[in-house]
Each structure stands twice: as structure tokens, then as C-alpha cells.
């Protein structure tokens, strides 16, 4: 079953949302300019770039990495990326032997301040249903095949802790600057559904 792309249904929903916004505006419950600003904020101002900067800093600075893994909230806070749906952060390190990946089976918990709003697939029924039961099969759908000697750890965000995966730094990046490193860190690598690819195209 797929979600949310039934267009005949969508126009009814659009009318319903417009009617609701108009009612709430008339009643002085919402300010349309504030709604515009909220949409703009999440479309243009927060996103996985924030998380990528956290990762790049950890790759460059061993002290920061240690701090990040011991106290994710304080370390991410030191870069200014805390807030709603990311006030209490835990960072999980991926290594040659351990692969962490995150999900919210009950709803859609996701660390907004570091990754922005979640992609539709993260909130989808198949991802929520399947990741905890068959993570290796799910990861293969993202193109990630993990060897049997790697331990997969799935983190189901059932409380108010929010999880960020610290992916492995790929080979061939020794001479890159922190900013260049941030450019190669993908959103999915910080959810745990892919690795960061080596810029030279190798692994």
C-alpha cells in the first residue's frame, strides 16, 4: 500500500486545509504570516546540512568526537543545533563492525534541528513496520549490503531521545577540509540507511 499520492483525494484535502486556515485566522488563533515563516524555515533554513557539519567536525577533531559520543546534547548544543524534536540527542557511531540505523515504529520521531523534517519514506508504513524485523533486507533496498560479520543495531525512538548516526569517514578524504567533508555527508548516512561514499568513487 502506498501513501499520499492519490490526487483526486488531494484536492478535497486542499480545500479542507484552506477552510481551516481561514477559520483559524478569523478567530485570531493563527497568524498567516507566521505560518508562511514556519514553512519557509523548514523548507529553506534547517536540514541535514546541520547534521553534516556535526559529522565533519567529529571526523576532524577527535576531542569533539569523544564529546559527541559521550554527551550528544552538549556537543551538538555547542554548535547551536538543539531545539524542538532534538533537545536530547544521542549519537551512535558506525564502525567496521557495527552498523546503527534509526526508526520510529510508533509515529515519526526524527531529530529536526540536525536533519530537518524527515523524508516521506522514513514516515512510511513499510519502513516503520519492517526495519526492526528485517533490517538487512530494508538496507538492501537502499543499496547497502552488509556482511554477516557486521552487527546491525536498530534504534526505535520510542521516547524523547533523538538519534543521529555518526557514519564512518570514507577512504580518500585525508586531505579534505571540514567544509569539504560536510559536503559529502548525506542525510541517509546520518539515519543509517547508507554509508558515506568515498569522493573518488571507491568504497
Amino acid at each position: 500500500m502506498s501513501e499520499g499520492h492519490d490526487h483526486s483525494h488531494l484536492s478535497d484535502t486542499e480545500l479542507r486545509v484552506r477552510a481551516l486556515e481561514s477559520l483559524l485566522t478569523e478567530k485570531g488563533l493563527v497568524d498567516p504570516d507566521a505560518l508562511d515563516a514556519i514553512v519557509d524555515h523548514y523548507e529553506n533554513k534547517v536540514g541535514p546540512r546541520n547534521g553534516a557539519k556535526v559529522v565533519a567536525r567529529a571526523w576532524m577533531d577527535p576531542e569533539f568526537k569523544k564529546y559527541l559520543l559521550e554527551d550528544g546534547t552538549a556537543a551538538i548544543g555547542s554548535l547551536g543545533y538543539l531545539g524542538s524534536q532534538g533537545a536530547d540527542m544521542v549519537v551512535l557511531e558506525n564502525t567496521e563492525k557495527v552498523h546503527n540505523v534509526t526508526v520510529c515504529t510508533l509515529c515519526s520521531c526524527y531529530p529536526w534541528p540536525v536533519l530537518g523534517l524527515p523524508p516521506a519514506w522514513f514516515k512510511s508504513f513499510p519502513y516503520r513496520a519492517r526495519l526492526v524485523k528485517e533490517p538487512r533486507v530494508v538496507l538492501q533496498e537502499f543499496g547497502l549490503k552488509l556482511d554477516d560479520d557486521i552487527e546491525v543495531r536498530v534504534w526505535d525512538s520510542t521516547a524523547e531521545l533523538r538519534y543521529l548516526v555518526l557514519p564512518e569517514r570514507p577512504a580518500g578524504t585525508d586531505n579534505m577540509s571540514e567544509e569539504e567533508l560536510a559536503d559529502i555527508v548525506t542525510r541517509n548516512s546520518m539515519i543509517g540507511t547508507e554509508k558515506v561514499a568515498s569522493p573518488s568513487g571507491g568504497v
Partner: protein
Amino acid sequence: MDGIHDMGGMDGFGPIPIESDEPIFHATWEGRVYAINTAIGVWGKWNIDAGRYGIEVLDPALYLQSSYYERWLYRNENLMVEHDLITQDELDSGKASGGDRGMPPDAEEIFEKQRKSRSFRVDANIAPKFTPGDTVTVRNIHPKTHTRIPRYVRSKRGVIDRDHGVFIFPDTNAQFQGKKPQRVYSVMFTAQELWGPDAPEQDKIYLDLWDDYMDPA
């Protein structure tokens, strides 16, 4: 509640719908629903747990056939009526019948609230019931209302991985029956404990669980 939202471990939903270059919002109305949800939350009529419960109580067939932001829309309509921000007549007619609230929160006020710690920690000195390394059994409980204990871990044995400190308890908070502060732990379950001997023996699943969800094993 044992609702349709509690999806962990279900089969039959098909492949993961991965899109390339997907937009933040797939239609203008999705952004408006998101923003209304944020702005109306500033009125403080309900909390995050009551909000989640508002989605869980949607009719299961409606839940499955709706898109993500449609579920948010229906939840918000219901909560706004339930908490007297609007009336059902106003919602049905789209016309306000008096009762202008005055000044709605502006963008600055909303962003300030979001920036300020929205932590659900409670500053209370509550001794841990468990310490890392302890083996626990998740309680076989079936609350009729909001809970964060998925079906797929009930009655299962896990190991306390780490203690995250004291947090609001969602089961009571969702019913406006108090914070009942208690500790939250990451709890490790082997894939074989949850899914049987065919699961890879090296794989693990971690959940964050409150004191009230577990007993010593």
C-alpha cells in the same frame, strides 16, 4: 492502545517508497498543515503525548488510507474542537461564530518557543530501578490509551544498555493525569529474542523504555 499505529514487525506493506530529490512538502497544503500544527501548539492546550494519541485514535481504516499530513490535519481538527479552540459547527461551516481570541502568536514567539529547550526531562531526583547490564522483562500490559511500549517487545527479555535520566511518563501525560516522572533507559534486545531463531544472531534492536514498562528478569 493496541492500535494500527503500532506497526513494528508487521508484514505486507511492500517495499520502502524511496524518492530521489524529494521536496520537504509534496504539496502546499502539507506545509500549511505542518505550520498550523506548530502555531496552534503554542496555545498550550495539549501536550506532545496527547497529540500523538490524537493520531492513534483515528479510525484504523482512515489511518491506513490517509497520507501523513492528512493524519495531522484530522488530529488537529479533533483536538481543537475537544479543547474548545473552535466548535464543531465552526469546523463544519468554516465560519467563525464570535469569540475572536485576539492576538495570535507571531513567528518570533513561535520560533522562540521552539528554540527554548523542548526537553521532556524532569528535574527530579528519582533513583534508577535498573542499572546498565541488568536483564529485564518487558511487562505484558495493554493500556487502552496512549503508551510508548510497542507490542513487539511485550513479555520479551532485554538488557539495560544505558540510563538516560528522568523524563515525563507519556501514558499519564497524554491523559492530562500528571507527569509521573521516571527514568528512561535504552534497552537492548537480540533479534532472536524478538523474532525467533531464524533472525541473525548478531543483530540487536534497541528501544527507549520507562521504569513502569519493565520488571527485573
